[in-house]
């Protein structure tokens, strides 16, 4: 039997709960319209706002909860609820706003909420897609294993290149010396490096292989195939880094914006209660 995942946890328990919450909120929104249109300060607005605030706190609590080993419920269930109820909470907060937006703390709070939720969606997507791609990319290998193999090809390539003309030797030496994997955030996220020395080496080798002596030609063929293999290894290593970076990158937004959201929500509530 296949294990349940975060989406169909306990036969979509939290999905159903989220749908019910959204439907109730929608019906309430349609049925009870204040005279001056929907706004956060109507009694329905207060109910929806309080509900969203409690849900935001609960969602944030997940961040603390998942780092604890001893707590009630299993983490998979919590994550399932976190995702589905987080989505429902976004709908409720939107209804709470009554679709009034302006340049103020209230809209800022809503905007931060959206950033948190959208980054959460991306994280969701990343965890759905990338683990499989990572396995496809790496197979049985680990990143260190790949690096070791690259290092071995380096050695081999250099040995062969010793017997080749200077230009070929330089290209190979440069490729071995300068190839880097995932240096810089942008490169990690893109998964490739523009002007990668390994790629350039392979490219230039094809051009330089023409005027060689007969013995060199055989070595050249070996060298070329080694360099091509090396390039594919480098590519795989970069891909692996890319997946891992992408699986973590959304947290750059999800976590700091959650902290910002909590402060903004506090300011929002204080502002409302102060200027009652």
């Amino acid at each position, binding site marked *: 039997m296949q294990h349940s995942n975060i989406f169909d946890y306990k036969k979509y328990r939290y999905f159903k709960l989220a749908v019910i919450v959204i439907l109730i909120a929608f019906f309430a929104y349609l049925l009870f319209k204040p*005279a*001056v*249109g929907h*706004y*956060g*300060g109507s009694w329905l607005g207060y109910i929806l706002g309080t509900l969203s605030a409690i849900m935001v706190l609960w969602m944030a609590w997940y961040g603390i909860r998942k780092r604890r080993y001893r707590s009630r419920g299993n983490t998979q269930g919590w994550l399932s609820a976190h995702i589905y109820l987080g989505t429902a909470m976004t709908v409720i907060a939107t209804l709470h706003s009554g679709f*009034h937006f*302006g*340049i*103020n*703390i*209230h809209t*800022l709070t809503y905007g931060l909420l959206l950033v948190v939720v959208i980054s959460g969606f991306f994280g969701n997507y990343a965890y759905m897609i990338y683990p499989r791609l990572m396995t496809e990319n790496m197979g049985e290998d680990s990143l*260190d294993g790949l*690096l*070791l193999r*690259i*290092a*071995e090809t*380096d*050695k081999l390539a250099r040995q062969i290149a*010793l*017997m080749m*003309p*200077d230009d070929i030797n330089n290209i*190979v*030496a440069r490729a071995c*010396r*300068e*190839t*880097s*994997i*995932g*240096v*810089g955030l942008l490169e*990690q996220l893109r998964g490739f490096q523009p002007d990668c020395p390994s790629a350039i080496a392979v490219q230039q080798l094809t051009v330089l292989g023409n005027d060689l002596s007969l013995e060199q030609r055989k070595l050249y063929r070996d060298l070329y195939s080694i360099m091509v293999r090396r390039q594919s290894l480098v590519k795989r*290593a970069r891909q692996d*880094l890319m997946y*891992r*970076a992408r699986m*973590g990158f959304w*947290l*750059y937004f999800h*976590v*700091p*914006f959650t*902290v*910002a959201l*909590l*402060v*903004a929500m*506090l*300011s929002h509530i*204080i*502002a*409302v*209660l*102060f*200027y*009652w």
Partner: protein
Amino acid sequence: MINCLLIKISYNSRGVLSRSYRTLTAEEISIGRGAECTIHLPDPRLAMHHAIIRKMDDGHIHLIAVNGEVAVEGSPLQNIELTHGKIVSIGPYQLKVEPAPPDVNLAISLLLAQRLPDDFQDLKSRTHEPLRGASKFKRRLSLWMAAFIALVFLALPIAQNLIPQLQIAMAQLPLGFDRVWSPGHISNSHLHFGSQCFNCHQVLTRKVTDQACINCHRETTPHITDPVLEKSVFKSTHRFSISNRCAECHREHKAPYPLTRQDNATCVKCHSDIKSVDPKTTLPDIKDFDRKHPDFTLTFRNSHTGKGAKKDIERISQSEKSRLIEKSGLKFPHSQHIGQVQGPNGIWDVREISCANCHQSEGKEMRFKPVSYKRDCLLCHTKQLEVGAADARLTVPHGSEQNVINALKAQSPKRLARDMEALKSEGCAYCHEIVETKKEDSLSWNVMPVSINQDWFSKARFNHASHHTQECKTCHQVENSETSADVAMPDRKSCLRCHSGNSPKHKRIASSCMSCHDFHSSIGAHKNFEK
């Protein structure tokens, strides 16, 4: 010919230094990666033919770069004279000119100064962890954003409220720090001061008080005519329960909605349980035009009744049908003035009359011009102003009795009494009610003054123009009215055919309180609002 002693210095695996000596004899000594070189150094960082050592014409021995680079103290040179003690770097190797033994003309030592790095470790150093420093970045971003929001959106607005000096200083600026707390657009009329919150929100944590409104709206007319009642209705009550503060009905920060609420709840709040507001009132409870609304009450103006008989204006509910009698002073059966009627020229003169022949609308709201004898009656009713036998007919003017007498006196004074009698019984009395006068006057009777009610629903607003798609008879059933005492005003039921209450019903339009009523009329009320 160079006779060269080559000392190769190397470290073994245990790090122990070892030297190997070799003597080379050649025309010139080539150094490089190539196997054919005299000094073969298998290192990828060297060129195939890196450099040569050659004896120059002047007898000095020089190191000359060929395809590679040679450098002394970091500066690359093309040609270096090898003198005793000179240290030259050839790629990763260090060449040092040693003191030459007597049988050779050059002694050099070669040391691999920069070993080839370990490939794996080297590559690892160039492979970064995914998202290096992520938690540091996240922590910093969190802190900065939280601090920024707490400062701009919380600390500064609160500080402005708590520190009076800051408040005063900020008042000079177009915006206060607390502007960021504004939940919505301010209405146009308040916009010029609304960007400073404290103008209205005078006390933190308290709702906007009526005093804040009255500071400007001093001359506001009271909303309820009875000053005592107004005070009891509009007193501010508890923070959480529904109060009757100004701001309860005049909602700010809700533009483009109008500042004043127009919904039913505004009215129903008090009128659904009116006794709780004013125990002495005789008004019924009203919730909804469809479900809970009393029958209409018509306004009668009894201007023609005798002195002190009844009050001038009387309001009678439509449910009291027996009292709905209009005393207009006219005898006017609507039934005979509608559809096909006989014209002034005999029985063959048949004319079609509709409501609009006499009730002529005017203005955008379709009010009606008062019915006038000259315009509406004269055409058919000239005969009623003629007296006397067919051969000696006299025509009297339509107007006051005195004018009629004067006209008769001038034309035929002898017949005055007879003619007046005829007018009393037939002429004037054809259309007008006649009252006998008790005074010893020139005339023993008078025509009752005409008083046609122009405003039956004085407490409501009705716009004929917005009902112009309907026929008159849909609401005013006068085809069978035989007397002018009949009041043909539509009742609540006939309105309910097309209108419903607060919510729309099947084929019935939703009609709120404000559809027909204005808020409490304040005409003649005292200026007690400030008290």
